[in-house]
């Protein structure tokens, strides 16, 4: 069991308010991702839940019990840090065993659990090595192993993949998702990468300047962003946001259309534009098209689309996929 409830939680460092009053419910077994630009307060929020920082006011409940004043270790949570935070002077075995040793658990039980976790994470051959002798991905797995053996109420991940190269990041993403399906334990995952958020989350919490902009499933956020910030943050490449006369024509202060919702044609359409940079990936083609009176729009075409710098193309937005925002940036 591991439901986490934040009630009117605030955090300020001296004069600086990092998190104004915030409410959030994380259900048991959910994979929740906190996403937002750097400095949005997502890591601070995670550290508040972990107990590594004190809340300035408000309450944190785990399984209904108030843990606001409890020390980190008493909250039954495990955390995987961005730097992995492995103990460099201990072997992999001792690293994984450390939380169990601190809990004063019997040696034979520790041994069984450590070996079990090592087997699950493909670390059996590395148990005697020091963290310094491991690759980035292996270190990451040790950090996860150290978290797993405690059988926590919930796992907290603080940007765990940001120090890995691109290929490894994709692989570890899958491993963590797989782990969630096996363990069915609550996981809270902090990242600035919206792709990680979209691919892993049951529920995404988009944060900006300490405030929750929107909470919802990945596709909810993709389909119905509540405001310009979420619209611009979720989705890759970014949604095209258009102000001015073109927006006014749709009765809004700004309109947004995703690159994949613009139909391309060489013959005719709503907007005529000149191709600037074109990125041909084979599977997709991304075009940056300069449309007079609208601006530069990003367009995604499936497969190959043979146009190049300076060519003229026509763009047509899918009418039912058009997002409209008022002058405050809220969705209409």
């Amino acid at each position: 069991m591991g439901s986490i409830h934040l009630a009117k939680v605030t955090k300020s460092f001296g004069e600086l308010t990092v998190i104004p009053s915030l409410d959030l419910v994380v259900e048991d077994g959910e994979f929740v991702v906190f996403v937002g630009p750097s400095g949005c307060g997502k890591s601070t929020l995670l550290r508040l839940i972990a107990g590594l920082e004190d809340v300035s006011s408000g309450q944190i409940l785990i399984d209904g019990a108030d843990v606001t004043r409890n020390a980190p270790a008493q909250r039954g949570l495990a955390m995987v840090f961005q730097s992995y935070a492995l103990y460099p002077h201990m072997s992999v075995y001792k690293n994984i065993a450390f939380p169990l040793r601190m809990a004063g658990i019997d040696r034979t039980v520790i041994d069984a659990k450590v070996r079990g976790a090592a087997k699950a994470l493909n670390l059996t051959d590395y148990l005697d090595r020091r963290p310094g002798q491991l690759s980035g991905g292996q270190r990451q797995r040790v950090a996860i192993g150290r978290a797993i053996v405690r059988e926590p109420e919930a796992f907290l991940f603080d940007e765990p993949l940001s120090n890995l190269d691109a290929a490894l990041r994709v692989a570890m993403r899958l491993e963590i998702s797989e782990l969630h399906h096996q363990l069915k334990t609550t996981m809270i995952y902090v990242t600035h990468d919206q792709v990680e958020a979209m691919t892993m989350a049951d529920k995404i919490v988009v944060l900006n300047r300490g405030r929750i902009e929107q909470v919802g499933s990945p596709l909810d956020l993709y389909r119905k962003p509540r405001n310009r910030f979420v619209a611009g943050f979720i989705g890759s490449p970014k949604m095209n946001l258009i102000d001015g006369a073109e927006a006014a024509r749709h009765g809004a202060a700004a309109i947004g259309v995703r690159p994949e919702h613009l139909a391309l044609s060489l013959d005719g359409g709503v907007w005529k534009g000149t191709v600037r940079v074109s990125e041909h990936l084979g599977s997709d083609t991304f075009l940056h098209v300069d449309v007079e009176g609208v601006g530069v729009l990003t367009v995604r075409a499936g497969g190959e689309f043979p146009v190049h710098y300076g060519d003229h193309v026509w763009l047509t937005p899918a009418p039912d996929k058009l997002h409209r925002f008022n002058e405050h940036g809220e969705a209409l």
Partner: protein
Amino acid sequence: MARAVTTRRKALLTVIGWTVGFLVFFPILWTVLTSFKTEGEAIANPPSFLAFDWTTENYTEVQHRSDYFLHMMNSVVISFGSTALGLLFAVPAAWAMAFAPGKRTKDILMWMLSTKMMPAVGVLVPLYILFRDSGLLDTRVGLVGVLTLIDLPLIVWMLYTYFREIPGEILEAARMDGASLGKEIVFVLAPMAVPGIASTTLLNIILSWNEAFWTLNLTTSNAAPLTAFIASYSSPEGLFWAKLSAASTLAIAPILVLGWFSQRQLVRGLTFGAVK
């Protein structure tokens, strides 16, 4: 980086380098050589460099004439004692400053540094009187106390700069893993900080071993460490160069070896981390 250096240039540099090194080191070399001469040869003119009758009698004589071993032990007790005591105070303080810094941490560090800059002579008079009145004059305890206090800022500073290099996340991980503050320091911080603590210890032993203001002013005989013992050779009747050399060699040899080992950390410690 990897660039060919002509052999001729390198040979030239080698000659210059060794000549300069020899000249700078000469007074020490000369002391060691003289310590193996007889008193007559020590003042021979022209001086004999290697072709003399090597003797070790000065070393036995030094111990025999004055209780060299006692002063040696005083030096050991004072330098090791003050360092150990200093570490006992400084490790927790440095932990607090490095990992739980508050608004005033920096001010406290700077203030500690400023105490190091107070000239010793400014407090010579009251300390002498305090020591005289409390019977601490010429005692090991008194000197250990004074040296602990003058070393403390340096120890705190050095440890602080080393601790700061340990990522705080690792200590937080330990906290998440259920380690109490004590266990966090013993099982995680201390093992990771071993190199830093070791070099702090080493440098501090060297500095206390060579401290020559308080040791000269607050001791007379019983607690006199080697600095004060050697100083007694300055009196005219102590002008036995070979014996002076033997006593000096014994006094500097151990610390010279330690110093050579600690040369890398020396810079950092002595500049309070300003140069690494």
